[in-house]
């Protein structure tokens, strides 16, 4: 078993494991990490396939940029929310498994049915341009120049699109601190708004404030709400809400 074989079997197995891990993880963060793992292994495979430029790009663009973008979005959406793996659409999982197996089986059988010829290798192709990177550069900036330029337009459009989509239109002028202060104390709110820095899910008077460690503070409740098991009930509600 030569080095290439070893790398293929190890990294290939890892890539499959990463992919499966992504599919079966309940938490999205775990999925993201699994897929990043799979992508790094695929990058290693690129190296063995005499494509060091793509391998590098794979690591930088995919595991570096794309997957980090995923993680950021996950943080916006909620890191700790976990997916229920119970299937809601009738027969979806069974049919999906059947079709996936059928598809994979068809592809594998099609590949297996072809006569395997020894690999040509890229040495000859690279040599014509005086090196691998030079060869790629020459191709990108000559034969594929138009496609390359179009991708630049695509990227700009995508950036613009993302900005437009994620942008929050402001419908009213931004309030000054002075205004906010007045609203809090003199405004129409029956109860005061939570103080800055308080992470509150609601502002009802019977909601206790959170202490820095995350526990509730009984002292923050009005005295009328203390006693008769009210605080315990509130605590139970708070716990259930997590």
């Amino acid at each position, binding site marked *: 078993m030569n080095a290439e074989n070893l790398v293929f079997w190890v990294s290939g197995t890892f890539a499959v494991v990463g992919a499966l891990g992504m599919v079966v993880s309940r938490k999205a963060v775990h999925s993201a990490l699994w897929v990043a793992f799979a992508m790094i292994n695929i990058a290693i495979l690129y190296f063995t396939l005499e494509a060091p430029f793509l391998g590098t790009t794979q690591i930088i663009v995919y595991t570096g940029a794309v997957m980090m973008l995923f993680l950021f979005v996950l943080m916006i959406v909620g890191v700790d929310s976990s997916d229920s793996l119970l299937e809601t*659409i009738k027969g979806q999982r069974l049919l999906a498994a059947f*079709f996936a197996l059928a598809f994979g089986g*068809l592809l594998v059988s099609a590949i297996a049915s072809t006569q395997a010829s020894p690999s040509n290798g890229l040495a000859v192709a690279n040599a014509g341009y005086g090196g691998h990177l030079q060869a790629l550069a020459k191709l990108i900036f000559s034969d594929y120049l138009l496609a390359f330029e179009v991708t630049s337009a695509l990227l700009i459009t995508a950036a613009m699109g993302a900005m437009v989509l994620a942008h929050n239109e402001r419908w009213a002028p931004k309030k000054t601190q002075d205004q906010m202060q007045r609203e809090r104390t003199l405004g129409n709110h029956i109860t005061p708004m939570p103080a800055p820095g308080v992470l509150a899910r609601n502002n009802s008077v019977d909601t206790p404030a959170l202490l820095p460690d995350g526990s509730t503070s009984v002292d923050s409740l009005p005295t009328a709400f203390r006693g008769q098991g009210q605080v315990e009930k509130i605590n139970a509600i708070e716990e259930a809400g997590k």
Partner: protein
Amino acid sequence: MIAALIGLPLLGATVLLLGGRRTNAWGHFLAVAMSAASFFVGLGLFLQMLGKSEEEREIGQHLFDWIAVGAFQVPFGLHLDQLSIAFVLLITGVGTLIHIYSIGYMEHDPNRRRFFAYLNLFVAAMLLLVLADNYFLLYVGWEGVGLASYLLISFYQQKPSAAVAGKKAFIVNRVGDVGLSLAIILMFVTFGTVTFEGVNAAAGLADSKTVTWIGLALLLAACGKSAQFPLQSWLLDAMEGPTPVSALIHAATMVTAGVYLIVRAHAIFDLSQTARTAVVAVGAITLLLGAFIGTAKDDIKKGLAGSTMSQIGYMILAAGLGPVGYVFAIFHLLTHGMFKAGLFLGAGSVMHGMHDDVNMRHYGALRTMMKITYVTFGLGFLAIIGIPPFAGFWSKDEIIHAAFGQSLFIGLATLLGAGVTAFYMTRMMAMTFFGEARWEDDVHPHESPAVMTVPMMVLALGSVFGGMAMLFLGDIEHWLEPVTGFAYPDHSISNAVLIPVTLSVVIFGAGYAWLRYGRRPVPLVAPTNVSLLTKAARADAFGDAINEAVFMRPGQYLTRSLTWFDSKAIDGSIGGLAAAIGGLSARTRRLQNGFVRSYALTMLGGAVLIALVLLLVRL
């Protein structure tokens, strides 16, 4: 001047129909005035015609080109000749008398103005019919009188029976009208023209078969309008209309339009022996059928209606005899117009005095209460049964004479008809004016006002002297000869033999009726244990039953099956297809469940399929 004949009553009708209630107070006077004015115009034209030599008597008036499409040229032209003027005088004369009579008869009717408007409309349409100089324009008048007849039969529109009778008359007339339109179409195709002049000139050149077909189509038209067999069924129901209408339209004028048509188209009939034979057959059948129906009717107006059918049968028969008969057909038409109008007006007068009761079994002994009506009706009676020297004798005798000249059977049929006529008319006379009073309670017979009796008297004078005047003073045979042609009948049986024979048949019929109805009491309710023949006569010789069995029920069945087929098979298949597609769509729509993952699954399924196909094709 000719146009004024039509224009005056048309103006009257227009004013009355468009004027609305404002004309209620004086509308009937306007109608009478218009009709009378038209009569005087007609009289003036008649006198003018008398003053001219025979060749110059025919005058025309071209008003405008009505239809000018390629070879199809229809002028709106009027044409007045000896035949037309006779009709004009009959229509406007009798029409004016009946207008006057209607003032009294319709005095208490809330829709009197409408009635007079329709009467004027009728007079205008009828005049257009007899004054047109081509068949196409004649058709307009033909339909116009049909419309007026329909409107007037169903004049008491609140009565369902009147409304139905109007519709029946309209529909049966349509059958005849198809014949007229076919005839006009055939004429145009064959001769290239529809004017009387052109058709008369070209008739001799045409194929004899085509001419026969045109003649038969014209006969169909005449049958419809003149209530001849087999289209006779509407006339008896038409008696639902007001009595003046029955007198004017359904006795004196409109129903004789068929006779006019045949005489007017004599050029066609002269050339086709087959068509003439058919006309004679129709006339003979109807003359006996109508008389037969008349013998059993207790309704005085229906009895007279049967009589009208029978008398028009005489005219049609005479018209079918060819040049020997045309003149006598018109002669009988004119005398019949007078005495039958008089009889109908008399019947109306009787009804007027008897609370609109038409059942003769409730009459009796009215001669004392209604003297004028009795006398005028009696004169009309003598005229119709053909007692010399009253009007009917001269005309009917000529027809019987001509019929015997044609064939013995036809002659015997007319002779028998004369006897039956005498029978039913005597029966009517006896039941109405003689015997004991069988009046209903609270009925107090009284004589009608002068506005009604005067027209009756005038018509009675016509019944007495009309025949003699026309025959001896007017020399009607030679008066009409330039238009219709004339040939003396074959004198195989001389008048010296025929007149006594006819008279004895008439007297026998009258005497038998007098024995049965004048000398014996008449039961109040019609006896039911009667012979089959009487039952048949009461049921109008099963005319309605035959129509219903042969045309109506199969038609209804066909319509029902077509409706069923349409709603079940056609609508069902189309609707079923739509419902099937709709149902299928409603089910396949469920595939669009909104879940992206389901759609993705479908995509993957498709990809699997494509891969499979690719592999299979390659392998």
